[in-house]
């Protein structure tokens, strides 16, 4: 049974086949023609969509709700809802006030959307819980802390480590409480999703974040439930620090070389999940591209301690046939190999103009992102520039590129960028997956001003 494959893989036991866990968050809604907002706010539509995911994609495990803003919304962040994306955080209650929220504000089972989520979990568990491992996703403590404090948290990490530690500890208490509710509602795996962890150095993770993450994973284990640590972005350097926080699994996206990551996770006997490229392959590729991505993983990575998944939450408009192709390739790799024999990947050949930066009147700051709305790291990187725009607008312009637009993909490739998000100044990559502080950013832009 598929569920056992996931449980065995996360318990580091030998498996007969590599398990397949599609992260159909808002994309689940597409299967029943519901918007992202509808599946994230309406329990009936959510459950109906999840049952469709289970039917069409043959998952061994699947998440119930992929929305990292659930906890932030309860703690006072305003959300901007979208039809094809999870909502984004529009206000940060601690942006101007460096304080720690009261413990009395920790969400209860009645807070915000928690009742809807718990009900959907119970109903899905009853319907398919015997055959499919169900994942309860919670927003990780560092991303939650940044939702509350905004981009200031990166400056706090430099100037006031104790504050960051205390805020992350509070957010870890929130994670523990939400985990408790989701475990009670029957979740087999709790995934702590913290995209922003890839944006800070391993040294900072260990100094300010690790205790909180370890507490959450140790709590989940004490309840006899399995845990995963999901990250997005180029987390190559951070994987070891993530492993040390003691999760059962780690899941990464296409920015990470899976083979190298597996060497690290195997040393800690932790299961690695990943990393079919979300946009180039799942959203914009062909069925063959998707099969090839799976076969490449299966042929190059050892099968023990491995789960095949998309890099992160699947884009809403991912063609259903592409995901079906992934499922087919995971379940029937030999058939997929035959179909791919005469296939070579189609490379986009779109013409894009790279400006002659030396002739521009103003400095050009270019933000190359996966998706500035959906990828939290990208959002914070874009905001770091927007926040200082008033101060630099006389000497600089900025542009945002999105890796789900074909022209932008071509531009990213032509610029030779291999990891996103990245900030370039006059064509030179300056920050790759790291969010600069306000002071650093302004100083760097001024260096290029005429």
């Amino acid at each position, binding site marked *: 049974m598929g569920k056992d494959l996931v449980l065995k893989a996360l318990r580091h036991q030998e498996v007969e086949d590599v398990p397949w866990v599609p992260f159909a968050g808002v994309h689940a809604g597409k299967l029943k023609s519901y918007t992202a907002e509808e599946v994230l706010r309406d329990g009936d539509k959510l459950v109906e969509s999840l049952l469709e995911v289970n039917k069409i994609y043959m998952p061994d495990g699947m998440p119930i709700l992929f929305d990292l803003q659930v906890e932030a919304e309860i703690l006072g962040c305003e959300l901007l809802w979208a039809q094809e994306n999870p909502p984004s955080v529009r206000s940060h209650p601690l942006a101007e006030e460096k304080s720690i929220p009261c*413990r*009395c504000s920790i969400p209860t089972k009645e807070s915000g959307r928690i009742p809807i989520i718990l009900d959907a979990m119970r109903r899905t568990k009853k319907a398919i819980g015997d055959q499919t491992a169900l994942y309860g996703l919670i927003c990780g403590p560092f991303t939650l802390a940044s939702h509350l404090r905004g981009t200031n948290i990166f400056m706090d990490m430099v100037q006031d480590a104790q504050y960051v530690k205390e805020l992350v500890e509070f957010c870890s*208490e929130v994670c523990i409480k939400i985990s408790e509710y989701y475990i009670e509602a029957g979740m087999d795996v709790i995934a702590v999703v913290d995209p922003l962890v890839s944006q800070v150095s391993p040294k900072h993770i260990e100094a300010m974040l690790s205790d909180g993450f370890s*507490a959450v994973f140790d709590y989940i284990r*004490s309840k006899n439930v399995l845990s995963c640590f999901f990250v997005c972005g180029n987390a190559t350097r951070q994987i070891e620090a993530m492993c040390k926080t003691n999760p059962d699994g780690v899941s990464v996206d296409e920015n990470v070389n899976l083979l190298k990551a597996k060497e690290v996770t195997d040393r800690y006997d932790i299961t690695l999940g990943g990393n079919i490229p979300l946009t180039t392959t799942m959203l914009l590729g062909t069925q063959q591209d998707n099969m090839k991505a799976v076969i490449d993983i299966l042929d190059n990575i050892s099968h023990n301690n491995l789960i095949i998944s998309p890099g992160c939450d699947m884009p809403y408009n991912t063609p259903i046939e592409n995901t079906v192709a992934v499922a087919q390739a995971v379940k029937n790799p030999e058939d997929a190999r035959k179909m791919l024999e005469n296939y070579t990947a189609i490379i986009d050949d779109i013409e894009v103009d790279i400006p002659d930066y030396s002739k521009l009147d103003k400095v050009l700051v270019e933000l190359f992102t996966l998706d500035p709305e959906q990828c939290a790291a990208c959002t914070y990187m874009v905001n770091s520039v927007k926040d200082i725009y008033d101060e630099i607008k006389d000497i600089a312009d900025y542009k945002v590129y999105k890796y789900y637009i074909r022209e932008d993909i071509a531009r990213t490739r032509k610029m030779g960028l291999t990891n996103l998000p990245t900030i370039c100044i006059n064509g030179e990559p300056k920050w790759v997956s790291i969010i600069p502080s306000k002071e650093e950013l302004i100083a760097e832009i001024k260096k290029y001003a005429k």
Partner: protein
Amino acid sequence: MSINIIMLTGFWGTGKTTLLSAMLDEYKDEKIGVIVNDFGQVCIDGTLIERDGITMRELPNGSIFCACIKDTFLNSLIAMSDKDINYLFIEASGLADPSSMSQILKVISPKTIREYNYVGSICVVDGETFLGYYDLLPALHQQVAYSGVIIVNKVDLIEEDLITKVLNTLTSINPQAAIYVTSYCRVDFREITERLSAPKIPGAESSNTVESRPKTFILSSNEQLPYFGFVNFIQDLSPNAYRIKGFADTTEGNVYVSSVKNHVSISPWDRPVKETKIIVISAVGIRMMSIITGGLKGELSGKLKI
């Protein structure tokens, strides 16, 4: 006739509850009300001082001077003013900063049925640990500064020159307060009550904020716990906890657990224990969760839950 308020302050494990128990025995012929403020989500101290004829209210979940539960404290004071009592003892939680007490009584005075007379605050200090914590925790300064009487407790455990240092520090903070040096809170209760006075310095906003709350963890169980495994577990936690207290049902009978840093006391408890409940106040933040789960192995595995 007005109701006399006597407040007891002091860090966790200094001996406040021991003092309160002894005072309740001393004042057994009086009509007494008690407000017990505990830091964790459940009250342990209430069980320790429970006795017939006493009107008691338990206020868990943080300091009564913190915004989180200050309104509950004010409402309790108003409700208590209607009871047939002459004395109201308030045992504040370990990190309570009582500097706003006079203002609180002023604010509620239009709403109270009978008037309150704030006799003063008795601060209990652990001679062994006071100087170590004093630098770290600003609330301890305020507890001393706003007290009328200071009891330096547990002096049997320490050297003479440390006592002198503690006394010098206490006098520099509060030259007016009467200071008693003792062990096991052995003092003449009538005498200290007579010498007690309300703070002479002006009231201030309490420094208690939600931020100044250390992490607390509740461990519970409906099963009988293996005694030796349980004792070892508590001993392993104690160096990283400010305080551990509670009641447990073990294979050697019911026990009362009281640990202050490395001093662990597990003594027989002859009253029934419906459910094992232990509060751990962490001195190492959220990391205590990993220390607890790391210790819940072997024969305790699955028996004691967080």
